[in-house]
């Protein structure tokens, strides 16, 4: 009958209290946010500047997790980038050439002279002068192949070496391509994260999406193009030997060489050896600085192996020029004056201070292994977000008031119970969202408003059922009891079906839509909880006190 055990009552009220407590910080959003930022800074070892005061603005014994505001509410930039994984195949293949050359030169007696043939950038073609020995050459090159390190590629090697008439053809195997793709995307993700962290914005979202895409959301940044300046450049730094200069991009370069334009001198091109001496990967540090003439420059330092390679090369090539190449453009091509030992140096060019700082950041964070193509970019101004929040808040309050009044007019005392439950319900939604660290988006606010409207449904089902049971003159207690009992299956079935659609939305949707799915799902859970337990508890308590002989619902 109408009895609820004490432990259940305590549990129900505790859940409500806990939910409301978790929701509490959201009522004081700016203050709690300042507190959280300040605490994070203090933890990171900073102090002073009023940080302690800011941290004290919110008592530390209270929960301080907030609902994250989505980009559409806070403003910021959103980018969806596709990693050009094929770029890496090219680099891999090009860098194979010196090794292949050295290997085949050792076998000159059998294979004769060798020559690199122009080919598709994803394969390496080497012509040998003794076609009869082609199988020997292939076998020799094959020794360069390494086993692929990946789960699916077990047993496979990374290179496919085949013979084509008098040419040895080297390509990457499919298993290796898969493994490379995976590595490339992981690396890109890591480097993008480092670059954004260097700039120091708050709560960026950097996520992998699908096989080769990366989603980047940075709240508070001015525009997507600013964000692209930070992450859009690959910042691939290499030091290449210079073969000659040219005035035209179509100049004949010869096999194994390439024509690269100068960064700041129009119409000047350099012919460089494609295989580099050292690359930016071997940098350990890069800092903005100034050269002896006081112009902005970037100073850098190599790691030991890079320093050794650079030292050896400069010792052997005093008097000849080498090029500093950034993303396929020659920044400068100084002549080597002396053996540069110690592995540090300085890059000069026509930089502005800002450019040299940016370049230093990019070099420090490391080069992106491959280029990025941007498939989607969105910039939302902070004012628009603020307007949306404001409009959403007002709409929520009005919706709330309208439903409360309407419920009271329709069900009287029971309507009041439902109203209290509805208020608790909205609190619980925010508590739940804060707890899981969900992101509130504009459609998410719509989801909450929709939930306000639909949350009363479970209560309406019960109240209508109680009305029906009262008609059969069973007595008040029995009618209430039966009302809850019989309405239950409808409540459960109706909410599970809605919940299914919320789950599908969450799984298939992205961004704002996902935000909507989360609030809808959270709303379904809390509204079922409040209707089945909270309102019922209130009705039972009311009944125990009043013991009414008749009841009008």
């Amino acid at each position, binding site marked *: 009958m109408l009895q609820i055990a004490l432990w259940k009552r305590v549990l129900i009220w505790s859940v409500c209290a806990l939910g409301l407590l978790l929701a509490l910080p959201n009522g004081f959003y700016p203050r709690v946010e300042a507190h959280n930022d300040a605490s994070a800074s203090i933890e990171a070892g900073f102090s002073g500047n009023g940080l302690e005061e800011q941290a004290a603005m919110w008592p530390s014994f209270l929960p301080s997790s907030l609902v994250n505001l989505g980009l559409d509410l806070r403003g910021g930039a959103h980018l969806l980038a596709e990693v050009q994984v094929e770029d890496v195949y090219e680099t891999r293949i090009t860098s194979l050439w010196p090794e292949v050359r050295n290997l085949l030169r050792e076998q000159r007696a059998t294979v004769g002279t060798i020559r690199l043939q122009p080919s598709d950038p994803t394969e390496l073609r080497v012509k040998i002068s003794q076609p009869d020995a082609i199988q020997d050459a292939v076998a020799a090159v094959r020794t360069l192949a390494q086993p692929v390190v990946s789960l699916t590629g077990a047993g496979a090697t990374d290179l496919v070496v085949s013979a084509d008439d008098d040419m040895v053809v080297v390509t990457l195997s499919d298993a290796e391509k898969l493994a490379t793709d995976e590595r490339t995307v992981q690396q890109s993700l890591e480097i993008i994260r480092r670059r954004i962290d260097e700039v120091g914005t708050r709560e960026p979202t950097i996520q992998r999406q699908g096989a080769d895409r990366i989603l980047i959301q940075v709240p508070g940044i001015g525009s997507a193009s600013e964000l692209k300046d930070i992450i859009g450049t690959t910042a691939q730094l290499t030091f290449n030997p210079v073969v000659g200069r040219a005035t035209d991009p179509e100049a004949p370069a010869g096999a194994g060489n390439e024509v690269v334009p100068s960064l700041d001198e129009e119409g000047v091109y350099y012919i460089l050896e494609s295989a580099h001496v050292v690359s930016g990967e071997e940098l350990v540090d890069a800092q903005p600085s100034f050269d002896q003439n006081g112009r902005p420059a970037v100073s850098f330092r190599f790691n030991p192996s890079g320093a050794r390679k650079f030292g050896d090369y400069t010792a052997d090539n005093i008097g000849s020029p080498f090029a500093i190449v950034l993303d396929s453009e020659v920044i400068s091509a100084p002549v080597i004056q002396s053996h540069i030992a110690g592995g540090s140096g300085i890059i000069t060019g026509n930089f502005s201070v800002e450019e040299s700082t940016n370049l230093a950041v990019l070099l420090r964070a490391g080069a992106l292994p491959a280029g990025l193509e941007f498939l989607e970019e*969105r910039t939302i101004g902070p004012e628009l977000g603020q307007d949306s929040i404001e409009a959403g808040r007002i709409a929520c309050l009005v919706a709330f008031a309208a439903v409360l009044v309407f419920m009271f007019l329709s069900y009287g005392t029971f309507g009041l119970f439902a109203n209290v439950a509805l208020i608790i319900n909205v609190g619980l939604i925010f508590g739940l969202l804060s707890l899981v660290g969900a992101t509130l988006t504009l459609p998410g606010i719509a989801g909450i408003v929709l939930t306000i409207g639909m949350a009363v449904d479970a209560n309406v089902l019960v109240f209508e059922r109680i009305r029906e049971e009262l008609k059969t003159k069973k007595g008040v207690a029995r009618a209430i009891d039966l009302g809850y009992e019989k309405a239950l299956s409808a409540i459960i079935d109706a909410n599970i079906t809605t919940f299914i659609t919320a789950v599908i939305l969450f799984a298939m949707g992205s961004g704002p*839509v996902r935000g909507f799915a989360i609030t809808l799902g959270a709303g379904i859970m809390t509204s079922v909880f409040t209707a089945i337990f909270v309102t019922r508890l209130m009705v039972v308590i009311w009944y125990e006190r009043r013991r009414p002989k008749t009841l009008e619902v």
Partner: protein
Amino acid sequence: MRLRLVPKETSWDFFGKTKISIGFSSLMIIASIAFFFIQGLNFGIDFRGGTTIRTESAQTVVVGDYRAAIDPLGLGDVTITEVFDPTFEDNQNVTMIRIQAQEGQESVTADVVRNVELALKEVAPDITFVSVESVGPKVSGELIQTAVIAVVLAIAAVLVYIWLRFEWQFAVGAVAALVHDVILTIGIFSVLQIRFDLAIIAALLTIVGYSLNDTVVVFDRVRENLRRYKKKDLKDVLNLSINETLSRTVMTSVTTLLALLALFVLGGDVIRGFVFAMIWGVIVGTYSSVFVASTALLKLGVKRDWSKPDNTAGNQFANVDA
């Protein structure tokens, strides 16, 4: 004294004029499909690629001037619409500029946006771009695909759930109502040419959820009454069930509509299309759970005689009373 939207006792006959309701629904569905194919949908950039720029300026907007400023840039198809909203302040003049996806590039380059900004500064020096969104054709194609899959998947999942909890006739009835609601919603978007973007898909799925909610409540009562009145005609059982749940159906629809109307009027223009879809969905969903789902159930018939074992209808879940 209580506010009652529905009289205390109703015994309205919902199936007396099935011809009219079936005819009406069929007509609406045909009209929706016709509009969809003739006029199409006003797809947002999410689904067809391109760029939208939301501008704000204190000066009154003359769309023609904006157009004259942008046209020389040669960006192809550009639509400029002024946005009005009661939540705007007096000197807040907002426009939406949509630029088609540019040939040979995925998302729009910063140069294009800068050129547009420079061109518009000639017309309105204080203009600011409140938001710039750009979607490449590659992603938009995939977004359409995912959206369609999401809707189909949602309907299929629900079909299975109701089939497990009730019987297959109920599932078919519920899904008939769902498909009806989704088609009519797409239809109204085609008729009114409201921008159809990713958020509308979310709205569609919510409509699916809401419409179901309603249908399931009616069906739950049908299931109960079928057990109680074993000898009663199916039509009478359905009628009785709808009448018994009518008061709840109307109550819930009204509270939901109240909340949605508040959002429609006060929630700002950014989500107005989204809210409109849901309002429409609630109205259509309420209608369909009474007239489409139940009529379909009536036409399909339900197995009433449980004395003989029958392995085609019902299963271990069918009689679970949660």
